[in-house]
């Protein structure tokens, strides 16, 4: 069931420059949460007319908490970053279709590729894939070592391949170059990616000639999140701007979606 309930902030801290981790406690349909699902947060200031769509990075149905990780990109997320523990936030969700976990077999070797604020949904995904018995590798990239977050989460779930543009930690270069250097594209049965458009295009180029299933989780400017306003449309090979990221996505088959 889709609800809009008040959640309470029970933890809120900075994870990296401009990156914040917020833990919210409240009631919603935890059974419907799949890796890749998102919620829309209402900002506690009437001047903001749009909710902020944020992917679920962790979810605990017993403690009734969800963890979100966001970057400050404007006034709205800045306001969010200033909210103290104990503050109530209205959460609309869970929204979107997650990654199709049922399509991967236990024991399968899978690759997660992420960058920037594309990492949070991959954290929940990595956990789920590990629990399913998959061999999880995660390739993530940052500008520099100081910007890194999520390292521990991905180390817990399998092998971590880390890249920084300036080489201050891990491989020197971007994730695409890292994967090229590893030259290990054929071993994966599924590849899951979330991040900037350039990264997703790289994943499409890199893996489209392989046997691997490709799943891309897309970010988009959204207004309603309910499939009504047509703001977040994306093109697929079946048509131009014919799918809505909020309801048909945010996860799409990497061979179907046109970026």
């Amino acid at each position, binding site marked *: *069931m*889709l609800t809009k309930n008040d959640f309470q902030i029970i933890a809120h801290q900075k994870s990296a420059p401009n990156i914040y981790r917020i833990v919210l406690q409240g009631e919603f349909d935890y059974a419907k949460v799949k890796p890749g699902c998102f919620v829309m947060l209402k900002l506690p200031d009437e001047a903001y007319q749009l909710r902020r769509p944020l992917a679920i990075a962790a979810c605990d149905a017993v403690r009734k908490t969800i963890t979100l990780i966001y970057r400050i990109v404007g006034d709205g997320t800045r306001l969010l970053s200033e909210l103290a523990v104990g503050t109530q936030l209205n959460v609309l969700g869970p929204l979107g279709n997650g990654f199709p976990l049922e399509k991967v077999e236990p024991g399968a070797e899978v690759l997660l590729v992420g960058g920037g604020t594309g990492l949070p949904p991959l954290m929940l995904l990595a956990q789920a894939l590990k629990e399913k018995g998959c061999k999880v590798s995660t390739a993530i990239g940052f500008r520099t070592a100081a910007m890194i977050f999520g390292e521990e989460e991905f180390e817990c779930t399998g092998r971590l391949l880390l890249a920084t543009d300036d080489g201050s930690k891990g491989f020197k270069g971007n994730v695409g170059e890292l994967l090229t250097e590893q030259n290990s594209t054929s071993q994966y049965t599924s590849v899951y990616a979330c991040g900037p458009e350039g990264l997703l295009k790289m994943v499409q180029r890199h893996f489209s000639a392989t046997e691997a299933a490709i799943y891309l989780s897309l970010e988009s400017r959204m207004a309603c999140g309910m499939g009504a*306003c047509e703001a977040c449309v994306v093109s697929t090979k079946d048509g131009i*701007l014919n799918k809505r990221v909020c309801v048909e996505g945010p996860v799409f088959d990497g061979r179907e979606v046109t970026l």
Partner: protein
Amino acid sequence: MMAEERLAVELPGLKLKNPVMPASGCFGFGDNRYAEMFDLNELGAIIIKAATLKPRIGNPVPRIAETKSGVLNAVGLQNPGVDVILKEKLPILHKKYPELPVIANIAGATQAEYVEVAKRMSASSMVSALELNISCPNVHEGGMLFGTDPATAQRLTKAVKEVSKVPVYVKLSPNVTDIVEIAQAVAAGGADGLSMINTLLGMRIDLKTRKPILANKTGGLSGPGIKPIAVRMIYQVSRAVNLPIIAMGGIETADDVIEMYLAGASAVAIGTAHFNNPTACPDLIKALPQKLDELKIKSLGQLIAEVRSAQ
């Protein structure tokens, strides 16, 4: 008086149990997740997304940008075309909610297109009224061009009225020097009512890219930031033209609804408020009776009569 009767209003072609309806473009064809959050039967009516003769892909993305107290959109009338709407979208809506009055928003690039869409749409027994969209700021042909020149607006209204089997509400653009002049023109063209206001043409520029945020560059501004403009325009038009007005433009609360009635409205449509509050419409419908008590208003019908007689 029963709570329901207090909210009931009657407009040409529309017997509404309450005056609250989702505005065109913010609610699709009812085929979205809002139906998971409340029963659409609670609504006074629904104004469905604009229909054109042929399917329209709409504008490139980004189509949406936020402003302080508002939203800019440039969706560009994306729709599957009038025939698909009549064959696939409306039957589903009608089957689920047979009692829900449907107002069909229609658009076109030429007068001939508007007329053809009006002819097909109004012939459907599932459609109670048309909303003639002469005010979309996000298309490069037609749209707002029909709503900014009085003679063109009058001609189009007359042509659509000649073929329409249901009452026609003309949706006015606020992007004009004198909205009264346009309202008088469409009244002379035979309009049965008015919808006002559509969005205001606006723009936001990204500081880093130095380019407009919207792919279409400009977009239509909606939300509470434009409410005072809507109130002013409805106030002016309702004094100059004797037509019922469906008010829209930043309505969020029961206070906003009453303010629109005091300006001269007969019903209200809700758009942007859905984004923060998906149950904006049913919440308003629930809040209205108490607001009427508080302000010692017997019924909305009586309020309309009082406002009209004081004009």
